[in-house]
């Protein structure tokens, strides 16, 4: 499950921010990967849509790194 979540999170980031998968580091800050605030917002909306039951918008905005997002979703999936 964890691997699947990680895979999905990376896929969403790659698709929404138009970054190649190999260029996404788990320690990267989401804000640093985003070109601007609209792109960042759209990314969070995409997470919210994909993981409806596990995430809350307000929580997502306080998460900093790719790894934090994966951990957050994992924690709420259990």
């Amino acid at each position, binding site marked *: 499950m964890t691997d699947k979540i990680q895979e999905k999170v990376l896929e969403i980031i790659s698709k929404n921010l138009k970054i190649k998968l190999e260029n996404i580091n788990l320690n990267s800050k989401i804000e640093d990967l985003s*070109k*601007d*605030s609209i792109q960042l917002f759209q990314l969070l909306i995409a997470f919210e849509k994909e993981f409806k039951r596990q995430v809350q918008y307000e929580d997502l905005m306080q998460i900093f790194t790719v790894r934090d997002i994966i951990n957050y979703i994992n924690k709420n999936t259990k």
Partner: protein
Amino acid sequence: MENKNIKSFKEIKKISIKKYLLEKEFSDYKKVPDFKKKDWLAGRFSAKEAVHNYFLENFQKDFKLNKIEILRKEINKPAYKLPIKQTVKTNISISHCEGLAVSAIAENKTDGLVGIDIEKIRNFKLKEIKSFLTGQELSQILKQNLENKNKIATLFWSIKESYLKAIGRGLVYHPKFIELKINLEDKICELYDKNKKIQAKIEWQIFKKRYLITKVNILKNKI
């Protein structure tokens, strides 16, 4: 729109970084991802210059830019530090986009909290617009032709972002909680936060045909 300072990376690229950055700011700069470095520098320069000009005009104090430190105290609400103690309380806001940066400074007592934003006018997809606009805002946009649609959608986004920056909350607060009633002809905008009207001065301007700059001043004692 007054009290804002626009700077482009092109204008400052020949200036030595040491002339406007403190040592610790230079360490922060090194951690900034490469694709954001130009924006970051333009943003710092613009903010420092705004602070410099404010103190020069109002108090005849001429601080060197590399003596003004830009800090990030709260989420999305920067601050600054001077080599001397300040008596007047002020707040600043910074925004950047494609090598352009804009910043503003406001006296808390008279100008309230300030938030500024610069955005490139972009081609929005309908689902993107829907994600940050309320139903009423959306209906205003859908009446427009395509060119205006993108301009106005960018305007809605940018004012919301300026407001969120002014209150120091950034995108932690969902933009749909904010509703704007914009009169485009008279350039008047009313802002409602969870249905409560906010006493704010809202201004905007198109810059170089492709960018939109918005500024929101919220009178603190009226929030």
